[in-house]
């Protein structure tokens, strides 16, 4: 089982996600970047599950959980973005500073 390349891919995917979160101004793109991070975690889970040959397949079960949660999260996130867009006519994340002191 080749572990290293898979880990590299996952790390790259994670870094891309982080980059996207920090850099993208569009809220939708930020949400997508979050998906990337989640998926990089999923890859790691599956890879280690395979490597360890877990009889209970905990890694895969966790992955399914994460996918479910990610779906829910994106659903809520997109709903928020939609509402913000409706009210502010923009999805630019820099325009939203409601949490300022």
């Amino acid at each position, binding site marked *: 089982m080749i572990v290293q390349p898979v880990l590299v891919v996952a790390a790259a995917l994670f870094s891309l996600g*982080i980059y996207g*979160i920090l850099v993208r101004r569009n809220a939708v793109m930020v949400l997508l970047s979050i998906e990337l991070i989640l998926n990089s975690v999923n890859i790691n889970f599956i890879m280690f599950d395979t490597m360890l040959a877990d009889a209970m397949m905990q890694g895969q079960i966790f992955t399914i959980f994460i996918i479910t949660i990610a779906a829910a999260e994106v659903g809520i996130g997109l709903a928020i973005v939609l509402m913000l867009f409706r009210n502010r006519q923009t999805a630019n*994340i*820099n325009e939203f500073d409601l*949490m*300022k*002191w």
Partner: protein
Amino acid sequence: MVNFTTTIFAEGELIYTDGGLLAQYAWLLVLLPFVAALIITFMGKHLPLKGAEVALATIGLIFLYSSALMYSHITSGVVNEFFINVGSIGVFDIEFGWVVDGLSIMMYFVVGTVALLVFIYATNYMEGEIRYTFFFTSLTLFAGSMLVLVSSPTLIQILIGWELVGVCSYLLIGHYWEKKDNSSAAMKAFITNKIADVGLMIGIIILALNTGTLRISEILYQATHEYEKLSTVAFIAAILLFIGAMGKSAQFPLHVWLPDAMAGPTPVSALMHAATMVTAGVYLLARMFPFYKSMAPDALDIVMLFGVITLLAAGLIAVVQDDLKKVLAYSTVSQLGYMVAAIGSGAYTAALFHLWTHAFFKALLFLGAGSVIHAVHSNSMLEMGGLRKVMPKTFATFIIGTVALAGLPPFAGFFSKDEILASFNHEGEITFFFIAVLGAFITAFYMTRAVSLTFLGEYRGHGHPHESHNLMTTPLLALSVFAIASGWVNIPGVYTGFTDWVTTRKNKIVEYHPESFDLFALSSGLLAGLLGIALGYYLYQLQGSAETGDDKIKIQPIWSVLENKYYLDDFYFKYVIDPVKINISRAVDKFNTNVIDRFVNGFGQIASLLGGIVYNNFDQNGIDKLLNMSSSGTDSFGGKVKLLQTGKTQQYLMMFLGGVVTISLLILFII
């Protein structure tokens, strides 16, 4: 409760009885007026005569009762005393009670008779006057207070009656209190008496503590039996009691209140001058006479001295007065001087005899003067004159009173004054004797002057005076009978019943009593009286009007000294009353606010100053500052840190990332 002990120290030589029921119920005399006063106060205004009938009924009963006592005393002699214990204090028993003996029965009778006539007179005199009902309340109380005084078997009750009389006189003199002069006169009477009362009070205290009792009869018993403890203080106690008597009996120099007391209505003056108030001092001296005689003969000399000074000084002032009532007032002071001097000379009976006759003819004179004043609406003799034609009854009775006062036989004053002169002569006090004779001359003179100015000559006043109502003239007539006949009860060599009456007491009376007429004294007195009348008649009738008469004797500066009453009032006001009332009292008040209070406030200020220092420097700038700094530091730090909170999610994430990276690096390279 009532202590029926009779005759503990019986020593009188006369045979007497305990008086039976009449004596046992003599407390009615004292109690009735007070009950009546209550009834008049609360119900008087609703009665048909506005309370006067209650007063009259009461005083009538008192008159009847005292007459009965007098009759019983004359026939069989009554001596008894009764005590009621009202409290014990230490070893002292405080007792009230009543005494029935010659002296007190004589006083009951005088008070009862004079008061009854004055009350009858007052119902008409005061008609339509303000506070008619209250006037009768006070008048009844006045008589009642005097009865408390004369019925007293203990010194403490004497003091009570003494001051009650003072208060009643205050109420009556100040009857027209709307005018400040009148209320001031009332105050003057009260305060002057109160000053004298200090003497009485301390005298009683000294006597009580040195005899261990307040009962007069026991004190007198000790006095006549040479108890040593008492004899050491006898002189000072005697003088102090005399000071008390000087106040009530208006002796020089405490006589100043009496003339001012004329501010009261005339019936009050009559009652006060004849029976109730001014006789109290003489009564006290007479009551304590055995004590004076046996233990303080030196004090008696002083008593006599003051009496003689008073009789002359007051008589002289009476000459210059224009106010009819004031002439009579000074005349009273002068006559009281006679009585006091008589006691001082050791003539107990003579003093009381003069008190007895004087009560009737002075009441007569005052009521006559009241009748005149009622008619002409003025007190000033300069606005009278010629009243004999329009007021024949008043004139006739006034003349009787005048002659009685001037001391012509067979009128009452002749006998009593003669007895006083005789006792002076007997004691060998020749100077005093001649002063007293001079006094008799002056008395006759000023009374002739008063009669001339009031009744003779032509009328100088306003309006048309007319004779007074029968209710006023009847008492005058009744009193004239007494003014004529009351002297006949003690004629040396003929009938000396009065001496027996007043010397019938529990304690033996040792005194000088003339057994027959002293012809020298008699002729001197009579001559002086006649000369006085003659001079008065010459100056004021033969020489013309009031003004010319006065002009003849207006010898300066004596006249103005007399008119200003020896400047005694001015002296009192300038050097005693005003300094106390204004200077000293204000100084004390200033001392209070500016010294004591400032001291107290100063404490407060020092405390608050110290507090300020502690508070400002230590508390506020010390402890509290530290506390405040800690909170303000937190505040400013937070203010700076909060700037990180931009609200931009991506910046938060950047920081989060930075944090993760830092921690990771730390873990990697340090741990």
